[in-house]
């Protein structure tokens, strides 16, 4: 089976400074893939290349190819706006739209795409909120401000918001770094469920989290993809000594 996402010789620059070099990576449908490494290693930079977020940063440049379903998302003629709809994103800190209700947050992406039918929107909202394990907690308060939710609920709302547009890939950038342990546990549990409907790439600072939730893990160091492989294998018998040093906690 062809990989859902293929990165080929990806290099990322901020101005003259190179942040990521020569990354090749395959991601398969229905898996959770963790990107780990110390701060500043390029893992978040690489993640943000997958939905062309770098287009928004003046001076940032991406070379190489990133193929989604075999199509290069950086090919000329690809509209980044249309392409981003296929890739969901969850951020480090919960970032619901503070002036919108819970419901409006979830369906924000659908409204962009022109869906106006209230029943249809409601159906998707329910499905997405259930998908993010939030439905039971918010079904009575869909029309209250999203900012009334707790931090962990807000982050699951952001997951529901990303799920609502039915993305092929869900990018998660340290999604639990701002949350308390019990909210973190809920979201980790959720990821196992989510891979039934989508494919996850998660950047995490926390090796134990990577070990718990992911099928494959990629270890980044100063812009290089040092090692990539099944999570169990990478943690138990790393092939590169730098990986070994990192996963055994000798630095980072």
């Amino acid at each position, binding site marked *: 089976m062809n990989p859902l996402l293929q990165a080929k010789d990806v290099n990322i620059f901020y101005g003259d400074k190179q942040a990521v070099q020569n990354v090749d990576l395959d991601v398969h449908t229905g898996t959770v893939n963790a990107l780990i490494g110390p701060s500043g290693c390029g893992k978040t930079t690489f993640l943000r290349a997958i939905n062309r977020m770098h287009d928004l940063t003046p001076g940032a440049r991406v070379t190489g190819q990133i193929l989604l379903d075999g199509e290069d998302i950086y090919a000329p003629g690809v509209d980044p*706006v249309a392409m981003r709809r296929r890739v969901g994103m969850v951020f480090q800190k919960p970032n619901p739209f503070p*002036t919108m209700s819970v419901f409006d947050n979830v369906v924000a992406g659908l409204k962009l795409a022109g869906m106006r039918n209230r029943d249809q929107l409601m159906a998707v909202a329910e499905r997405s909120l259930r998908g993010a394990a939030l439905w039971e907690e918010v079904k009575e308060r869909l029309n209250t*401000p999203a900012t009334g939710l707790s931090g962990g609920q807000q982050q699951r709302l952001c997951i529901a918001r990303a799920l609502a547009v039915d993305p092929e890939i869900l990018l998660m950038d340290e999604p639990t770094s701002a949350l308390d342990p019990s909210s973190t546990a809920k979201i980790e549990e959720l990821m196992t469920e989510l891979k039934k409907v989508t494919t996850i790439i998660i950047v995490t600072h926390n090796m134990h989290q990577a070990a718990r939730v992911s099928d494959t893990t990629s270890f980044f160091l100063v812009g290089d993809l040092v090692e990539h492989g099944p999570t169990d294998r990478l943690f138990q018998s790393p092939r590169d000594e730098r990986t070994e040093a990192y996963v055994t906690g000798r630095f980072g």
Partner: protein
Amino acid sequence: MSDPARRLPTRASMSSGSDRVFQYLILALASVIVLVFVVSLYLLGVDSWPALRQFGVDFFTTRTWNPVSGTFGAAAMITGTLVTSFVALIISVPLAIASALFVAEYAPRWLANPVGYLIELLAAIPSVVYGLWALFVIAPVLSRWEQGYFASPEKIAIYTACKNIWDQDRTTLQCFFVPSAFDGRGLALAIIILTVMILPYTASVARDVIRLVPADQREAMYALGATKWEVISRAILPYARAGIMGGVILALGRALGETLAVAMVIGDSQDIIKSIFGGASTMASVIANQFGDAQETLHRSSVVTLGFILFFVSVAVNLLARVIIQRLTPKGVK
């Protein structure tokens, strides 16, 4: 703030004594600010009293302003102030927000800084210079257009019909847009120049708050597949709305009190407003145009009362801005 634990024990007594003296000195100087406010309130109140006692509520509701007969009602200037300010605000706000978006979201850095600076300079141009420019440059343009009403017979007919209506102290929607004066001065010119003058206040506040919208708000909307405009209209502007409203109200405050530019171009008429091209007056313009000539106590007191009203209105606008900013500020993003 004389926390002795923070100082060396040997210096404690000496320094807390000198600290107290310094604190009283600073407090005394800072209290001058409050003093200025209280003295202003007192002087304006005392000088307004003769007019307020004489006319009472009628001062606000009647529109006869006649120094000869000694009858003063400020309804015309109050209306003039509200009309010029709100119309100018309505025109300027979208332009100001657009220019703020250009500087904060669209322009590359090498262009954003100079354009932002130009907009700030716009706020630095003195009122009297705006007035001069409006009088010498825009008024002739308006005047030429107004005089066009005498060029064609149909238009003269319209004008004559409107003149009849105006003479009965009435106006119609059509006549409201027929020129009643031909030198370019009047309500329309005052609105135009006021619009230009208050633009930079909203624009620079809006730019600052738009820049403060967190990056992840923008990115969340982009990640859902939004175009740039959709990100602006659905994520950035809603998030920044409190600050932008603050800027709008700041501009409103400026517009209500704006004096010389308006006084120079509005045509200083205390008549009922019959045409947008006719003369009018605002509270501030009447103060500028009449205070110097006001000899009788009642006339002078009535002019000061206009200042007193402006004083209260600007205090109220300031407090309103605080409430609105507090109400609209996004809270609780965890």
